[in-house]
């Protein structure tokens, strides 16, 4: 799935990233508000959905080599966080959808936790 499709499926606002970055492919995703768990349990996931807003979310994504961050429940990152994300080349999206719904939409459209599901 392309990041562009993640954005469309979640009816999300683009807060950081350009057209070229939206064309990047993502193969798996995870959702958590607990960065400790993201660091401990996540492997090779390129999208992180979270409702947590602080600079460590950006740094955690950067440490994990993720390429797309989605803030759920209408959470908005601060301008400092957006500029940090820009520095690391991360695409940042924000959606009004809640975590469960956002994850469900992406999962049922083929973006699972272990790579793209065959449809």
């Amino acid at each position, binding site marked *: 799935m392309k990041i562009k499709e993640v954005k469309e499926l979640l009816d999300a606002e683009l807060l950081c990233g350009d057209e070229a970055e939206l064309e990047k492919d993502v193969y798996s995703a995870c959702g958590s508000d*607990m960065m*400790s768990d993201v*660091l*401990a349990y996540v492997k090779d996931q390129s999208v992180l959905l979270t409702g*947590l807003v*602080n600079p460590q979310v950006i*740094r955690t994504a950067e*440490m994990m*080599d993720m390429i797309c961050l989605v803030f759920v429940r209408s959470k908005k990152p601060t301008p400092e966080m957006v500029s940090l994300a820009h520095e690391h080349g991360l695409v940042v999206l924000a959606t009004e959808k809640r975590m469960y719904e956002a994850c469900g939409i992406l999962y049922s459209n083929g973006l699972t936790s272990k790579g793209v599901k065959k449809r």
Partner: protein
Amino acid sequence: MSEALTFHFDVNGEDFTSAGQASVRFKKNMRELGVDPEIIRRASIAMYEGEINMVIHAHGGVADVEVDEDAIKIVLKDRGPGIPDIAKAMQEGYSTAPDNIRSLGFGAGMGLPNMKRYTDEMQIESTVGVGTTVTMKINLN
């Protein structure tokens, strides 16, 4: 590289929002050296967890990194309260982090076990009231 390259990072413990900055710089340094991306990721996560720990528990500290042709060695040193029971601290889910840290998304008691998991060797030396030194090694080959 024939001689070991060294990097020094100060970890500021005053402000949680800056926690992780040293690890971001470390990761950039390793990329510039052309280290394998999977090894960089493992080393960066271990360093990041260690850095967060130093900020949460010890008001910061210092990180010294040495890279030679065989391994990345990371030494994290703080003058914090020390760890009274290292075996207990190594248990997954055991945490002494305060509630305000949990609300920031950390303090699940996964830091030290995670650091061990992502590295090839890890030693913890700690004296209560004096401080803690964590030494981690990640093999390059």
